[in-house]
């Protein structure tokens, strides 16, 4: 069993009001480290055995077709060790 992780983030040029809200909440709690926060989505996809190259290629297609909207989002695919 392995887990394939797909991280989806809004493209840098797309406004992220949720990230902004988090960024403005941090200082209210006394945290002063953040100059910016961007919020995204993480998908953990479980597969049997070690993922094959073909499976990973399929995940790439699924990530582009369903998990992300390429108009506003970028994604990365990796296997969790």
């Amino acid at each position, binding site marked *: 069993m392995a887990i394939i992780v797909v991280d989806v983030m*809004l493209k840098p*040029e*797309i*406004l992220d*009001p*949720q990230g902004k*809200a988090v960024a403005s909440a941090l200082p209210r709690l006394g945290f002063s480290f953040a100059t910016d926060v961007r919020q995204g989505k993480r998908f953990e996809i479980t597969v049997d055995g070690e993922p094959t190259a073909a499976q990973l290629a399929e995940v790439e297609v699924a990530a582009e077709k*369903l*998990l992300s*909207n390429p*108009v*506003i989002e970028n994604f990365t695919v990796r296997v969790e060790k």
Partner: protein
Amino acid sequence: MKIGVVTFPGTLDDRDAARAVRHAGGQAISLWHDDADLKGVDAVILPGGFSYGDYLRCGAISRFSPVMEPLIAAAKGGMPLLGICNGFQVLAEAHLIPGALTRNQHLHFLCTDQKIRIENNNTAWTSSFSKDQEIVIPLKNGEGSYQCDDETLKMLEGEGRIVARYIGENPNGSRNLIAGISNERGNIVGLMPHPEHAIDSLTGPGEDGLGFFTSVLQSMISGGAK
């Protein structure tokens, strides 16, 4: 004239959309998301609501419903298709129109009677309006901020494909105050505010929304958009 109204799990405004169709003099036909059958309709409305609970992204899962396959093919062939609110989001997810709808800039759900300007009255859904006519219809959404890249925005502006624009303060952060856009041909329109909730003064802020439904009936009679 038969106008199909699609119901997805979580759709809210299908009944009002069907009522608006009847009010305008058309025949409303219910279409089911899980049924790849358009039942011989002449036009289709994707109504508002929260299909699939807005999971993943608004409209992202509905976009792959069985009914969407014949619908996308018919719309690409010129059949009039109107997506309202969640329906607009489905159109964007299906890439039938450019851009995407994102979280309102102020993060709040918004519900208000909104003034908009009909800037393009040459589409299948806006021909009953005069150009630059100002109307008031309800706007109610959490993810209504229209976003696209600069190039797309320039194209939409240049080709006159901004169908409707918000008047006054930007209610949700949409680029260039965009409330609605069309595809190149003008048969597909995505609209964030809700004309189906403004077809008579008893149940809405007025009758301003009715024009969208009379437009499509008129365009089908004249054969203009089909």
